[in-house]
C-alpha cells in the first residue's frame, strides 16, 4: 500500500508493506542511506529521524504511521541549530567509526531546538537513547555545548 508524507521538505509516496518500518522505506525505497540500522528495537538510536520535529526511532515507526506527516533525516537537516551541531561535530572531531553519528546528530539537533542551551542533565536525558560503541560520549557532550553557544551567538 502507498504512504504519502513529506521527506526532507519534499512530498513522497512510497509503496511498502504496511508494517515496514520507516527506516527501511527511507533507506531502500527513498535511497537515503544516512539513517542507520543498529538494533531494530528502538534500543540504540542509530535510526533516529525527526517526525514533525520530534526525534523518533525509525526502526520502530511503521511506514503507514507517517502518512501526511513531516519526516527529516540527516540529509535534510537545514536549521541553523542543526547546522551548528554538525559544525561542532567536525570542530571537536566527535566521530570515530561514525556509524551511530547520524542518529546522535539527529537526537542532538532535536534537543537544541527544544532546549537551546541544554544542561548536562538535559543532554543525558535526550542522548541516553543513542548508543555509541566507540564511546565518543565526552565529545558528543562537549559538541552539544559548543553548538548551543555558537547557535546562540549566531541567532
Amino acid at each position, binding site marked *: 500500500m502507498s504512504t504519502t508524507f513529506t521527506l526532507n521538505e519534499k512530498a513522497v509516496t512510497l509503496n511498502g508493506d504496511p508494517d515496514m518500518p520507516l527506516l527501511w522505506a527511507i533507506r*531502500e525505497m527513498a535511497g537515503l542511506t544516512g539513517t542507520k540500522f543498529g538494533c531494530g528495537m528502538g534500543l*540504540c538510536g542509530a535510526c533516529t529521524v525527526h517526525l514533525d520535529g520530534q526525534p523518533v526511532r525509525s526502526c520502530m515507526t511503521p511506514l503507514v504511521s507517517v502518512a501526511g506527516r513531516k519526516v527529516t533525516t540527516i540529509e535534510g537537516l537545514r536549521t541553523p541549530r542543526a547546522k551548528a551541531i554538525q559544525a561542532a561535530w567536525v570542530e571537536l*572531531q566527535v566521530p570515530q567509526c561514525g556509524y551511530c553519528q547520524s542518529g546522535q546528530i539527529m537526537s542532538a539537533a532535536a534537543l537544541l531546538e527544544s532546549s537551546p542551551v541544554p544542561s548536562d542533565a538535559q543532554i543525558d536525558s535526550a542522548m541516553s537513547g543513542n548508543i555509541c560503541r566507540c564511546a565518543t560520549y565526552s565529545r558528543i557532550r562537549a559538541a552539544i555545548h559548543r553548538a548551543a553557544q555558537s547557535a546562540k551567538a549566531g541567532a
Partner: protein
Amino acid sequence: MSAPMGRSSRRHFLKSTGSASIAALIIGFEWSGSARRAIARSVSVNADTAAPFAPNAFLRIGADDSVTVIAKHLEMGQGSYTGIATIVAEELDADWTKVQVESAPADVKRYINSFLKIQGTGGSSAMANSWIQLREAGAQARAMLLNAAAARWQVPVAELSVDNGVIYDAAKKRRASFGSLVKMAAKGPVPNTVKLKDPKNYKLIGRRVARVDIPAKSNGTAQFTLDVDLPGMLVALLKRPPLFGATVKSYDATKAASVPGVVKVVQVPRGVAVIAKGFWAAKKGRDALTVEWDESRAEKRGSMELMDEYRKFAEQPAQSARKEGDAVAAIHRATRSLSASFEMPYLAHAPMEPLDAVVKLTPSSCEIWAGDQFQSLDQANAARTAGLDPQQVSIHTLYAGGSFGRRANSGSDYIVEAVSIAKAYGSDGTPIKLQWTREDDIRGGLYRPMYFHKLEAGLDGDGSITSWRHAIVGQSILTGTPFDGLVKDGIDATSVEGAANLPYAIPNIDVQLATTKVDIPVLWWRVVGSSHTAFAVESFIDEVAYAAGKDAFEFRRELIKDHPRMKRVLELAAQKAGWTRESLPKGRGRGIAVAEAFNTVVAQVAEVTVDASGGFKVDRVVCAVDCGTPINPDIITANIEGGIGFGLGAALYGAITLKEGRVEQSNFNDYRVLRINEMPKIEVHIVPSTEAPTGIGEPGVAPVGPAVANALFAATGKRSYGFPLVRGNG
C-alpha cells in the same frame, strides 16, 4: 632533513628500468621472517591518459595536485586513515588539504601487515607496522618530484626546497606544484635510498591534524557496507542454529517463500537463508521460516556449568607460562598469604554496524564489499567457498561501523556465509547483501572467552611480596587458526598476555594456563588477553598492597622499578590525578591500575561515588599513556576516551551467558553497554616520545575495569571478584 639513514639505508629498493612506456611503477614488499626485501613490479598504463604519478604502492599524485594515499589498514573508527595519510604526507611535504585516502585492494604482496604476516588490521599495529614503510613511501615520492624539478630547471636538487605540495627554487624565484611535475617524475628512476625527516622538522606528525573521515561521518554521506546498493541487489538474512554446533536437519520454506518480496530460500552450511528484494521482506521471510535442527553434536553446556568445571581445573597442575623461583614453597614460608579468584564472562563485541557483506559471484569471479579487516584470509576463505582461486576474489574495503576484533576472524564467518548464499543462489552475478540483525550479532558467537583466574601471594614479615601464583583457565583463541604458531608448548599467548609478563619484581613467580575445550566459538576482543588478565592482576596486586598496609600506588611503583617506562606512566597518572595517601571523603573512592598492551603502557586512576542503595557512578578517569611518537595527539586521546568507555561498559554490564547451550542475551536491552549518562569525565596525558609509535586502538581498555573495581573497594571496603560489576539488568 638530513637524518642518518639508519634502518632505511639497509633496505634495498630495486631501481626502475625507466621505460618511457611505463607510467606507473608499483613497489611491493615480500616478508620472510624478519628480513625484508623489496620487489618491483611494473604496471603498464596507457601513456595517452593523464596517468598520475604512482611511485609506489601507497600513493598517487595527480596532475591536479591531488595526493591519494592508499590505506592498507581498515578504518573502523581508530583513525587509521588519518594516521596513514599523515605519515606519508609528512615525508612528502604534501599540502594536507589535497590529501585523500582510499582503501587498498586485497593484495598481500603489496599490502602485508608486517606484524600479523597477512594483509589485515589488528593488534593495534596499523601505525607501528606502517611507520617506516610509509614514511619511506612518502620520502621516495618527494625525492622523485625533486629530481623532476631539478631536471626541468637544470639546477642541482640541493638548491631546491619543498613545502606544502610545492617545490621552490629560491635563487631563481621559481615554483612548481607537485601536479605540474608528475609526468616527469614518473619517468625518473626510483631512488635506492631515501632520507627520513628529523623529528624536529615534523609539520604534521605530533599535531592535531583533523581526521579525513569526519566530515562525511557528520553529514550521513560516509559509505558503510549497509549503504551499498548495486543494480538488482538482493538482501539475505540467514537463520542460524540455536546451539553452537547444531546443523540443519530439515526446513519448510513454504510460508517464507510466500512472503511478498522473498525471491528464494536456500540452505547453506551455516543454516537457511532467505533472499529477498529488501531487508524487511527478508526479515519477514526468515521469521516465517521453520527449521528443524540436528542438535546431536551441539555444545549443550551452560556458562555456569562451564565455570564450575573451570574452578576445578584451576586446582590441577597445568601448562607453565612463567616460572621463576619456587612460588609454592615461598607461599608456604610466607608470614602471610592471600588468595582470590576472578570470574570473567563471555563478551560479545557488538559493533554498531551489525555484520554485513555484499557479494557478487559469477562462475569465474567473486567481488566483495565489506568493512573487511583480514583481507588475505577473507580472500582465501571466499575463494575456497566459491571454488575459485584467491586471485579471482576482489575485495572493496569500506568503512566499518566498529569491530573491536569481531571482523578480524580467521574463519571469515560472515564473508563465507555471504559467499555461500550467493553460490546457493546460482552464482549468476546477482549482488547479494548478507545482513545480520543485532540478535544475530549477540547470539552469533566468536565471543571473548570466559576465563577463571586464581591468584595467591605470599608476604614476608616486612610486608614485602615474596611469591605470586596465577592460574588461568579458559579457551584458546588461536588454536586451529592460521595464528596457532603463537601457541607454544600448550600456551596460547593471548590467554596469558598481561599475566605471564607481570611487571612486578617478585622473587618467586608461577603463572599457569589450563586450556579448556568448549564448542563455543571464541575470538579476540579489544585489547585481547589484557581484557581479563589486567583485571585479575591489577585487582589482586591492589588487594596485596592493602594487606601489606601500603599505599596502592606506592606499592606498585616500588615493584615496577625494573620497568622504567611503566613506572613513568604510572607516576604521571598518579600525579595528574592528584593521588595522595589520604582517602577521598566518605562515599567516594579512588583506584589505580597500570597495564602494558601492544607495546603501549597505560595507567589510569578512577574515582567513584557510591550511593546509599549500593549503586555507584564513575566520576572521573585520569589516564597517562606512552605510545611512542604521538602521531596525532587528538586521535590518541579519542582512542583512550573510547577505550575507557568501551572497557567500562563491559566492566559494569557485559556478559554473554548460556543456558543449556543457548545464549540468553539478544539485543542491547539484555546485553547492556555504556550510555552517555554513565560516561565519566576523562583526562588523557600523553608521554612525549620520539620512539617508534606503538599501539593505541586497544590499550586504553585494559586498566579501566580494575581501576574502577579498586576505587569501589576504596569507597566500600568490598572487593569485586568478577565482571560484570553490576549484575542483572539493573
